């Protein structure tokens, strides 16, 4: 009966321990050091995130520490690396913005480190309780980040909206969790698998799974749970929005994939229909809703809804190839999304940010390099080969065709064509329209490396894609194999 504290398990969650301790140490540094504080805490946060990513890569995988509360596997490691990469790049881009907008406070990096800790727990969750605790840790930090510019009405509004709708989503998720727990008698994914193996048409568990999927669909802003996205993306400070579209999206998507493919694997025929509808709705709204937008942050919000839809196409396939497609898609979206946000952060005139799409007119003449980078990202988002975005779509559609989802694939390709319209319109504005006033120069030491690296990766993806594809394949294989009919 009496269990000892599982001290030996601490080693297998080394990245989480490191993030927690680093976050608290940075907080104390920020409180007690008064000179140059935001500088120290900022670079400290970047360093701790990089070290956490490194620890996640080198620490062994395959264990299920804390009696199966977590599953430290190749899937979790892949997603942790993506999440940490997104957090590091978004944080680096935030530096200049924070200084210019006089929101240079040390709490933002600390909150981002702690949010990353929550995401680490999310992507490795192997129990409904870990899932919820990780999700809440992440969300709570993000609500505060969204409202970080408390002097600006839009930012406060974004924070409040995100908080209220996030609370609704958490409520739905918890309701689903309680139903699943009530009908299976266990919160652990293994326990749910075992119950479903004995009784695979338990209505209670199915209803619970639907609620959990709806709660998570909120977090990845899939239609019809997307309402908050444009307002929050527009209102939140731009680097925070970049962070939103990068790290939390990865984590929530990973969580959705793991929950559906692991504990609810036996219900695949049922949840496939749900994911099908979510994917179609998101792709359509992402493509059609963005056309009328004049604000580039809102446009990116619709674009992220659309991309969530494309990623869900892979999940709808419900196969190992589908999960592989989702992982590759997420990795590519992370890179090109962050690059685009870097370009948006470079859009400032006389020291203030401008966000209109028309402000980009004629950028190719005033800043050819920036225009080229943004054009690369836009073509990649539209899915033009040989840029990275094409391969992301390629793998998810391939998996969908293999699974026989022809309708979904056709809709997806059509929506991708519609979406290409507004991406390419930006390129047209930059290259063929009369120049608007030039943006401030220089772009900034913090933005240039991020934009350059992401642009190079986007262009050169097809040359050096093997390591990513292999590790994604490995991750997908462990996730899908780990839940083969034996249940373990």
């Amino acid at each position: 009966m009496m269990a000892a504290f599982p001290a030996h398990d601490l080693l297998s969650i080394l990245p989480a321990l490191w993030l927690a301790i680093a976050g608290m140490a940075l907080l104390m540094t920020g409180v007690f050091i008064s000179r140059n504080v935001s500088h120290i805490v900022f670079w400290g946060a970047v360093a701790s995130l990089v070290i956490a990513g490194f620890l996640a890569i080198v620490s062994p995988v395959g264990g299920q520490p804390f009696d199966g509360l977590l599953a430290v596997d190749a899937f979790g490691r892949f997603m942790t690396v993506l999440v940490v990469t997104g957090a590091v790049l978004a944080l680096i881009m935030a530096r200049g913005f924070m200084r210019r907008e006089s929101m240079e406070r040390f709490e933002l990096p600390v909150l981002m480190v702690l949010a990353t800790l929550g995401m680490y727990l999310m992507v490795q969750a192997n129990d409904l309780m870990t899932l919820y605790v990780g999700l809440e840790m992440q969300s709570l930090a993000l609500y505060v980040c969204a409202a970080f510019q408390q002097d600006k009405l839009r930012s406060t509004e974004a924070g409040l909206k995100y908080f209220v709708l996030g609370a609704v989503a958490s409520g739905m998720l918890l309701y689903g969790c309680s139903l699943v727990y009530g009908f299976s008698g266990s919160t652990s994914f293994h326990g749910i698998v075992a119950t479903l193996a004995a009784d695979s048409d338990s209505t209670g568990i199915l209803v619970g799974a639907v609620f959990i999927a709806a709660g998570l669909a909120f977090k990845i802003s899939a239609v019809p749970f997307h309402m908050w996205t444009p307002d929050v993306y527009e209102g939140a400070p731009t680097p925070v929005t970049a962070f939103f579209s990068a790290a939390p999206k990865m984590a929530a998507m990973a969580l959705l994939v793991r929950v559906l493919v692991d504990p609810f694997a036996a219900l695949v025929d049922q949840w496939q229909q749900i994911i099908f509808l979510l994917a179609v709705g998101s792709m359509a709204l992402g493509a059609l809703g963005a056309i009328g937008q004049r604000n580039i942050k809102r446009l990116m919000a619709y674009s992220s809804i659309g991309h969530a839809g494309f990623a869900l196409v892979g999940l709808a396939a419900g196969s190992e190839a589908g999960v592989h497609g989702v992982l590759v898609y997420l990795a590519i979206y992370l890179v090109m999304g962050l690059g685009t946000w870097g370009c948006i952060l470079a859009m400032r005139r006389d020291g203030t940010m401008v966000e209109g799409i028309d402000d980009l007119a004629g950028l190719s003449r005033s800043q050819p390099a920036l225009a080229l980078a943004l054009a690369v990202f836009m073509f990649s988002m539209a899915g033009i080969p040989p840029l990275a975005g094409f391969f992301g779509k390629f793998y998810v559609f391939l998996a969908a065709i293999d699974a026989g989802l022809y309708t979904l694939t056709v809709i997806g390709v059509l929506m991708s064509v519609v979406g290409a319209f507004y991406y390419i319109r930006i390129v047209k504005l930059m290259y063929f329209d009369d120049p608007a006033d030039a943006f401030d120069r220089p772009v900034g030491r913090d933005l240039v490396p991020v934009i350059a690296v992401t642009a190079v990766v986007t262009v050169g993806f097809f040359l050096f894609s093997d390591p990513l594809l292999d590790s994604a394949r490995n991750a997908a294989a462990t996730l899908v194999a780990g839940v083969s009919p034996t249940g373990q």
Partner: protein
Amino acid sequence: MILQALAFYLFAAILLVSAVVVISARNPVHSVLCLILAFFNAAALFVLVGAEFLAMILVIVYVGAVAVLFLFVVMMLDIDHAEMRQGFLNYLPIGALVGLVLLVELVIVAGLWQYEPAMAAGLAQPVPPLDVRSNTAAIGDVLYTRYALLFQAAGIILLIAMIGAIVLTLRHRQIKRQRIGDQVRRRPEDVIRLHDARSGEGV
């Protein structure tokens, strides 16, 4: 046994009476105080059924924190409760109807409740019988061992909430602080000026 029954009826009666007073008292402070009394009696009922952990949590969390917070809010906000209660009789029928529906639902649930027999096998951590181990000890057995990770993670969530509350509300405005050095250094000739003010014109 008879003693237990007597205790039950005593606590239950006080609970019901104080609950009625909560919604009918004219003075909101009396309402909150009666709410605290209701919490205490509910805790006593929990002790009677052997759920001493819930009883303690009820007293510590609800009485110690929530009710005291209510009391502060009630005392700080100047609410005219007599005015708020003016529509009370108008809403009584619909309120009674909602209450009746809830009561019927509760009775149905209580009457038809049963455990899925297969579920007992899947329980991750079956609760030991009361005579073997008390609830508090049984929760402690798993909370700090098996679920230590979640316990710590919940602590970090609270830390994030605290950081968030401070970030969003604390502003370093131009606060006038007392500088004793400046005060001591002040001399009459620096701060006192003599004006010849004519009558009717001011300074």
